[in-house]
């Protein structure tokens, strides 16, 4: 049987302009007079070749900037490759985003039609599936209400529902599942499992290793635009984790936004065992008045599942906004009852100039105490290592 997708030597080059994000005529005109300005080139993808067989669900993983999104964009025909050739066999749909083209002024009904047709459905097809789509999304009552009055959760459900009723032979999905409430996420993952069971082909890019290992029968690890590993998901995930651990040199300073920097993000971590305490400290430096309205540490496990957050808001912090101010943070996380493993720490910050999550800023390692009993398999042990006294009486 012929592969449904054949990628041969796919490469993509970008030129980095050392200026604003888009060109302006003035730049172009000034370039005429100064030929010395050279754009830096970089290869987002370099000689990537692989085949995807019918019925495969292939997970694509890699660090930020490894070339995953570029690969998806090339496969979706949004941007052309610089070199190489892709041959595909079958109707392909790509979901780089759900709800593309949703317009706040249009009603739910109108948005279903517009979004559906953008994703390649025929009008007749949408008409036939319309009731099912509406039912799946659970927005029956608001069908003729403009989308701007929907809650963000409802918008997302509606968007995913349209996408769920696409029937392509090849489906390309970018982390769209990482959003929405838990109930709906389950529904979506279930729908994806149905798709892969029905023999169609899925390409799935994700940070969520748990989802990749559950949904995919093959995986591909990208690093610096090249394939580092490919094969069974668990092996590739293992390679990814190892690769990541090797690269744990952390920068002393991280730019959060213009004028706001994070310094010396530090976790004191000698031998850390389940139940131990963990000290942390970091400094925030602001060059401009920058009242902070939200701040939290985010803790992720190896599979990039969020384990928990440490809310750092208190009255002393909220509204601190002197110019050139330096904020020092330090604290202790008591009784860390986590199962052994590597944990990544990020930061969520919300202030005048920036709002969002910053990942992979630091990590700590919880190891298992030496014992006589061989521990159960990692995957069986969940997230929490309970403190427990007792046993057989």
């Amino acid at each position, binding site marked *: 049987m012929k592969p449904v997708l054949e990628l041969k030597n796919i490469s993509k080059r970008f030129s980095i302009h050392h200026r604003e994000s*888009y060109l302006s005529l003035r730049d172009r005109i000034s370039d005429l007079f100064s030929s010395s300005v050279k754009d830096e080139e970089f290869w987002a993808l370099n000689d990537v070749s692989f085949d995807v067989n019918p019925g495969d669900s292939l997970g694509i993983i890699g660090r930020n900037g490894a070339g995953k999104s570029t690969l998806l964009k090339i496969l979706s*025909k949004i941007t052309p490759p610089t070199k*190489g*050739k*892709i*041959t595909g066999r079958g109707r392909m749909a790509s979901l780089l985003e759900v709800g593309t083209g949703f317009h706040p002024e249009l009603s739910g009904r109108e948005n279903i039609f517009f979004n559906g047709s953008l994703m390649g459905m025929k009008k007749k097809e949408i008409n036939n599936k319309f009731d099912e789509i509406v039912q799946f999304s659970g927005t029956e009552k608001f069908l003729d209400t403009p989308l701007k009055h929907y809650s963000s959760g409802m918008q997302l459900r509606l968007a995913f529902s349209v996408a769920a009723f696409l029937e392509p032979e090849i489906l390309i999905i970018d982390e769209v599942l990482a959003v929405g409430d838990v109930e709906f996420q389950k529904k979506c993952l279930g729908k994806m499992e149905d798709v892969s069971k029905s023999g169609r082909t899925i390409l799935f890019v994700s940070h969520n290793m748990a989802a990749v290992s559950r949904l995919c029968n093959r995986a591909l690890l990208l690093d610096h635009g090249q394939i580092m590993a490919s094969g069974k998901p668990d092996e590739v995930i293992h390679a990814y984790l190892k690769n990541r651990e090797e690269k744990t040199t952390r920068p002393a300073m991280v730019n959060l936004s213009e004028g706001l920097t994070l310094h010396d993000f530090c976790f004191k971590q000698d031998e850390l065992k389940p139940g131990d305490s963990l000290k942390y400290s970091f400094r925030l430096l602001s060059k401009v008045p920058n009242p902070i309205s939200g701040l939290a540490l985010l803790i992720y496990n190896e599979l990039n599942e969020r384990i928990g957050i440490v809310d750092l808001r208190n009255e002393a912090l909220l509204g601190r906004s002197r110019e050139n101010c330096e904020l020092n943070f330090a604290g202790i996380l008591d009784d860390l009852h986590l199962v052994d493993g590597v944990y990544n720490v990020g930061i969520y910050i919300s202030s005048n100039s920036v709002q969002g999550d910053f990942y992979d800023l630091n990590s700590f390692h919880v190891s298992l105490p030496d014992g006589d009993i061989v521990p159960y398999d990692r995957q069986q042990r969940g997230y929490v290592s309970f403190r427990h006294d007792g046993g057989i009486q």
Partner: protein
Amino acid sequence: MKEADEFTITPPAKLTLNFRELWQYRELFYFFTWRDVKVKYKQTLLGIFWAILQPIFMMLIFTLFFGRSLGVETQGVPYPLFVFSGLVLWNLFSTGITNAGNSMVTNSNIIKKIYFPRLIIPVSSILSSLVDLFFAFIVFIGLLIWYAPEINLINALIFWPLGIILGCIATFGPGCWLSALNIKYRDFRYVIPFLVQALLFLSPVIYPQVVVQQRWLQILLAVNPMYGAIEIFRIPLNGELLNPSLVELSILSGFIFLIGGLIYFKRTEMYFADLA
């Protein structure tokens, strides 16, 4: 699996319009146009009436200042009728070129996330101005009944549609060009309104072409592709074509803009997602 479903993705090669693909995506033309029209008049009290009110008000203003006060001579055609016949096409051009010019930028979030032939976007925004033209045309017919000038019906049936088609071509070429330029150089966001204003005075909308006597000004007028479209559209009113050679030049200019615009659009199309 059908053979037709096989596809290849390669680095950009030669320029083709790829009509087959445009045909495959034909429903999207409809949906984009439909969305543009819907969104335009959502949450407006008067809705689609604006399509009628705008040209009527412009006609009243021009009639007061140019028709009454300055007494512009229009070969026996009542001035309100004369100016409205120009405005019917002019509004197609001005809204069409403005919307098409900005269309790629306003739809950049879609361009970055999903593939379809990009040409659909500027074409649809011009198609949605055709909807406005339809309503303005009804008012035009109303004015004709009111003023009851002598009109050769066969002339009308030939030259009205022909004028509108030429108007579409005149709008489409520069519209495509501007939409591609705008996504590359955002300067064009400021160029477009200025261009539209300037061109109004280079079109025989508010004055007849005979007012212009200098040869070089006539040529400048004729380079404007709307000149020909408006003159053709007015044949049933005027009863004759006043300056055929200038009109021919203008129509030729329309086609040159069309071909140039399409070529430029197609050449940059592949990189829109990287630029947007």
